């Protein structure tokens, strides 16, 4: 009569040579290892929409600079709409986040130490972060940048070509980082 598989397996595991082999089999049985969060189509679409809206807005503001149409007070709707769009993406990212936060690789933390922005520094006892926490932080950074753009608009009374170019170049870099990560995830799936 055929013996049950489990006792046979346990007996074999007691043999030193079999343990690593069992580990390899167990790993081999896993279909894939996941270290990063899955590709998020809505995040990609959301930030792409935001960058398109911001680019058109900056072109309009440069053209209207020095006129009433270019003043911050007459463009509050743009900021309100975009904050709404980014809040939607943040809410979505928060729903997937476990609240652990985002940490860079251990080496980056060790070398950069106190020079790291507070949000990226580990809290006491924290040794890990999640990819979802990193997605959330990247979108929050883009929203914080929009708040700064509004403050610049208010402080200058309008946006001249030099300010608009700096704002656009810097924002693009933050957005490109999000899109780069999402494209990589898409390719890796």
């Amino acid at each position: 009569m055929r013996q049950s598989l489990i006792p046979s397996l346990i007996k074999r595991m007691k043999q030193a040579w079999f343990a690593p082999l069992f580990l390899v089999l167990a790993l081999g049985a896993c279909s894939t290892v996941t270290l990063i969060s899955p590709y998020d189509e809505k995040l990609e679409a959301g930030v792409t929409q935001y960058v398109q809206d911001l680019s058109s807005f900056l072109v309009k503001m440069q053209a209207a600079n020095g006129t009433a149409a270019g003043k911050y007070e007459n463009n509050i709707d743009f900021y309100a709409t975009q904050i709404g769009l980014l809040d939607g993406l943040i809410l979505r990212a928060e729903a997937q986040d476990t609240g652990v936060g985002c940490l860079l690789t251990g080496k980056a933390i060790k070398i950069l130490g106190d020079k790291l922005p507070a949000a990226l520094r580990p809290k006491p006892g924290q040794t890990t972060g999640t990819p979802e926490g990193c997605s959330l932080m990247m979108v929050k950074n883009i929203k914080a940048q929009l708040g700064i753009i509004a403050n610049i608009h208010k402080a200058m009374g309008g946006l001249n070509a030099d300010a608009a170019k700096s704002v656009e170049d810097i924002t693009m870099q933050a957005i490109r980082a999000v899109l780069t990560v999402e494209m990589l995830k898409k390719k890796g799936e």
Partner: protein
Amino acid sequence: MTVNVDQVLEAVTAAGKQVFADNWGTISTYAETEFKKMSQQMVDIAANVAKHEVDASQGYTAEVGKMLMDMQRLSTVNVLIAMSAMTLVAAQQALNAMLEIVKNTLGGVIGAIL
């Protein structure tokens, strides 16, 4: 003192290589491109503040320059996060490729002796 893009780029790249030493090969193309843009943006901010001091209709004030530097810091954080994610994606792909080989080559052998 005038600071040019190459000076800033050299300092930023040296720091990046130190932080991501083990994974620099994986992320170098993205990192070098973004570091160059980052250096250019910082130099542009300084140039625009200087321009404004000469002609108030050009560039922007030091106060606006400071706000733009705050924006740049946030972009830099996103770039660092992306660089970390790239190393994780590379590790994930390497692990999964290894597991696929294990599954294909050893799976049958081990299955036969159980």
